[in-house]
């Protein structure tokens, strides 16, 4: 159980003093918002590691970590929250080991299994904000659909080789979702993962750090329904004079979206539809397979 807190302890004032004094952080109400927040980080890899480090440091009340993978030696160059001594551990538990040392105030909950249509709804309902730190399009569609149906905002990051992307999806149920941006999944052969494509550690690390900052902004109320404008950020680690970042203004929510749009839409997703297996997230990246209906 998680009781909302209305005050900070002396230890918390000291620990968080440097961020509390920055006006954009919203001072003590900002810190209390973090303390009373529950966030779910899906994927404790190249994006999840730095995001978890900074969000645990900043004092989010409860952090859930979903990852069914174990630490491999080839992860450690970029997944710096895991170390060589913990190769073979579940990533979620390896992350927990360090994060508890970093900030014992934070309640860490691990889920050492794969997010799937059957378990996702119950897990999401425990949290206020979802960080999508996964590495495949099918998990991105699944996370999106469940977040839309449970009313959760998603901070979404991705990256491969020398580039990364960042967005906030389904912001307070009023911003566009992943399916608003990408109604049709990409052809399966067009997808490059970190495993295939390689990735420079600080490149994916930078996107993870940016995700932590966007999560702080969402949780502390920096973005409101009035000030939030849908965006897609593109980072490149080897571009221009050194590194580059472009932030594009994006479309709003689409009424005809099957995930976040009007309830009357034909083919509108429901928890029942997703849990029936009608949507093949694994192979078709979230395309509805009407044959099973």
């Amino acid at each position, binding site marked *: 159980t998680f009781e909302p807190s209305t005050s900070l302890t002396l230890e918390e004032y000291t620990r968080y003093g440097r961020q509390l004094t920055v006006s954009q952080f919203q001072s003590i109400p900002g810190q209390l918002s973090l303390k009373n927040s529950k966030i779910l980080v899906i994927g404790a890899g190249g994006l999840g590691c730095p995001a978890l480090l900074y969000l645990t440091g900043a004092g989010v009340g409860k952090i859930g970590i979903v990852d069914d993978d174990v630490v491999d030696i080839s992860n450690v160059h970029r997944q710096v929250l895991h170390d060589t001594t913990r190769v073979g551990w579940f990533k979620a538990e390896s992350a927990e080991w360090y994060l508890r040392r970093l900030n014992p105030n934070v309640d860490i909950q691990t889920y050492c299994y794969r997010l799937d249509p059957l378990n996702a709804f119950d897990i999401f309902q425990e949290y206020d904000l979802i960080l999508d*730190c996964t590495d495949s399009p099918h998990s991105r569609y699944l996370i999106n659909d469940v977040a839309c149906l449970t009313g959760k905002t998603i901070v979404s990051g991705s990256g491969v*080789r020398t580039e990364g992307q960042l967005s906030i999806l389904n912001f307070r149920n009023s911003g566009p979702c992943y399916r608003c941006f990408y109604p049709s999944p*990409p*052809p399966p052969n067009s997808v490059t993962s*970190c495993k295939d494509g390689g990735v420079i550690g600080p490149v994916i690390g930078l996107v993870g750090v940016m995700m932590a900052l966007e999560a702080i902004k969402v949780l502390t109320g920096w973005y409101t329904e009035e000030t939030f404008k849908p965006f897609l950020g593109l980072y490149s680690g080897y571009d221009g004079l050194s590194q580059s970042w*472009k*932030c594009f203004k994006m*479309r709003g929510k689409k009424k005809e979206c099957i995930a976040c749009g009007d309830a009357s839409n034909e083919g509108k997703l429901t928890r029942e539809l997703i849990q029936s297996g009608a949507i093949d997230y694994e192979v078709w990246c979230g395309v509805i397979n009407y044959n099973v209906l």
Partner: protein
Amino acid sequence: MSVNIKLEFLGGLDVIFNSERYHKVTVPSTNASTPLILRDLIKYIVDNMIKDPKDIEVFIENDTIRPGILTLINDTDWELEGEEEYVLESGDVISFTSTLHGG
């Protein structure tokens, strides 16, 4: 009248454009009385800039930009700017970015 456009191929799309992210092109007018629109630019790119015909399907599907690629007009989603009907102006920056999935 022809228009001068800056093109950006991001998110790994540069691989089918000689591994160059940034290009400057002059799109020639097809008809003096009709202004050039984004659809003309896409045709120009396919006809003149994609060397290997096998690469066309990386960029185009069903006669439009392939799912998973976002098109941006002067840093704004093309959906807010009229998509393929957008009337090009000299100096416009048109960006195409492939979606990244890695993490």
